[in-house]
Each structure stands twice: as structure tokens, then as C-alpha cells.
């Protein structure tokens, strides 16, 4: 379980660095296995971006852990503030 908690915390920390202005930021381990995550971010930076560009920013922030192969699935939910 310690490993799982670490993975969640690491993703959250990477996201906080990438989106310091986020009004909502949540990482949920969907299965408890530390490899299926739901990422939720609400940020004013998304206000004028298409969904695909919003998700690109999240994907970029998590590129390193994703490339490592440890993450099997990321579900992403992004929201602007307007």
C-alpha cells in the first residue's frame, strides 16, 4: 500500500507544480492498484482551450511517470473556471 500511496502523491505533486493556480486538483487511484488513476483539474488556464489542448497540458505534466510504464490508465477530467 505504501507504494500505491507514493504513486498517487507523486502524480499530485507533479500536477501541483504544473498547475499552481488550479482551483481544484485531485488524483484518485481508481482500483487501489496504483496504476489506474482519475485526474481532475479545474484551472483558469483551461478557460480558452479546447478539451484536447486541456488534456495535452495534463498529459505533458505527467509524461515522465506515464513513460515509465507504471501507469496503465489515466482518466482525465479538466474544467475551466468560466
Amino acid at each position, binding site marked *: 500500500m505504501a507504494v500505491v500511496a507514493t504513486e498517487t502523491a507523486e502524480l499530485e505533486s507533479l500536477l501541483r507544480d504544473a498547475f499552481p493556480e488550479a482551483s481544484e486538483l485531485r488524483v484518485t487511484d481508481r482500483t487501489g492498484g496504483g496504476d489506474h488513476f482519475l485526474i481532475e483539474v479545474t484551472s483558469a488556464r483551461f478557460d480558452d482551450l479546447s*478539451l*484536447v489542448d486541456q*488534456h*495535452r497540458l495534463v*498529459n505533458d505534466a505527467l*509524461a515522465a511517470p*506515464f*513513460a515509465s510504464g507504471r501507469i496503465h*490508465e*489515466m*482518466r*482525465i*477530467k479538466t474544467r475551466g473556471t468560466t
Partner: protein
Amino acid sequence: MNDELRTRIKSVIDTEPVTLFMKGTPQFVMCGNSERALQALRSAGAPVTAVDVLPDPEIRQELSAVSGWPTIPQVFINGELVGGADIVQELAATGELERKLGESLGDAYRDEAEERVVSVLVPA
């Protein structure tokens, strides 16, 4: 890098009205996220040209290099990346997907909507 494979992938994306890169085929879907994207497209009455990425890991590598998108599935409409399963599902739920399809393919896009599978594999 596999130039020929990359060219084939680009060609499918650019010539097909709606391309779905997925794990498996519409007849035999191998992943829940590919299933979500397929169902979203079906719910909007979209034509679907499916490409199975599983036969060769290089397909996925080259596709991500072309699109800058790390995960499967990936949906393209008229050459433009629309997104993965989460986005396509959300767009379908809000009606935005149908609007986008109508705008890109013409309002009568449902009339000739069919599903087909193409391969991007380079013949040996």
C-alpha cells in the same frame, strides 16, 4: 522511427472522415477505453474507420509521435485529433460531438455512416 509506417498512419488520419485508433477491432474490442470511445462515436452516428494498434507495438509509437498524444484510443475527425476516450465520451454526452461531425463532414454524415477496419501494417 519507422518512416513507412508513419506515412501510412498519417495517410489514414488525413483521408478518413473519422479514424479510431483502438486496441482490438469494433467486432472484438480488447480494452474498456477503446470500447468507451467506440460507443461514443456510435451514439453520435459517426462513420468509423478503426485501426487496431495491437498487431505491432510500433504502430502505437509512431501514432503517438504523429499526434503528440500518449494513450490509446485516439479519435481523429478530418485529420484533426479530437481526443481520447474521456474527451470523446464527454463531447458525445453534451451533443458537441454530433455538432462537430456535422460541421466537419456535412449534416448528412449519418446517412452513409459505416464501420470498417483498415490496417497500417507495412507488408513484409
